[in-house]
């Protein structure tokens, strides 16, 4: 199903989904979110989508540190003597 831009089809979903995915909810709030996910098919679908998207963004955005930079950083250490 599709929804109009700017219209939240499930207010409950939006209130809980983002902090739930971010692991920012207390135990009772998390239980509330999970109870809602059990009964709301749309939120479950959104949850899986958002989770995959975040995982992909995290993996895609990672660029490893150039090997020589670590040596340059180590060169900034204070000499012992």
């Amino acid at each position, binding site marked *: 199903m*599709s*929804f109009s*831009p*700017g*219209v*939240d*089809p499930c207010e409950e979903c*939006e209130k809980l989904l*983002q*902090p739930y995915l*971010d*692991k*920012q909810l*207390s*135990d009772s709030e998390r239980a509330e979110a999970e109870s809602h996910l059990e009964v709301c098919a749309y939120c479950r*679908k*959104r949850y*899986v*989508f958002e989770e*995959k*998207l*975040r995982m*992909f*963004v*995290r*993996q*895609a*955005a*990672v*660029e*490893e*540190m*150039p090997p020589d*930079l*670590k040596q*340059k*950083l*180590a060169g*900034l*250490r*204070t000499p*012992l003597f």
Partner: protein
Amino acid sequence: MRRPVLAFQSLDTTMLGWPAMSETTPEQDPRRLAEEARDRVHFEEEALALADQVYRVARRLVSTREEAEDLMQETYARAFRAWRSFQPGTNLRAWLLRILTNLNIDRGRRQQRSPDLQPLEEGDYYLYNRLEETGREPNNDQDRVDERLSQDDVVSALSAVPHDFRDVIVLVDIGDFSYADAAQILEIPIGTVMSRLHRGRRILKKELAEQTVETA
């Protein structure tokens, strides 16, 4: 489970009003000097061990690899000078990131427009809906998100997000910091972290949606 809130007492104004940080030498006591040298070496080794993780965040806070490398070197030079300001037992990675984000802001980003002035019509469902409209049902294992979006799409979309929003997204989604940690690092209220994260993710999804439509 909530992650522990960071203790940043050691940073206080010394970390914010550069370069007013204490670099006093200990008493000229050989035992104290030896302890100090040992603590400093330990600090430097721990900080260097975190360099890969700090770089991943730094790289997405700035536009180019060269900028990220410069920022890393400035950050570590400053951290090594100010090592006594770090309180052992607190979050060293967050401490380093706080130095780094302050340096990045000092580079002139304060000129940026207020993030709250930017209008944004699309809601949280924009990308989801756009993917459906292009005939690609989201949340289908046969057609996963990573098969519809490329790494370049993500990097490009992220760079299009205004700095104030991007900082929060990078810290939370790439750096894996809690809302509270991000608030401490950026020196903004936790409510602002949450609102910028919410809005920033909307902008990111809008950018991704537009790229998805372009390549459909």
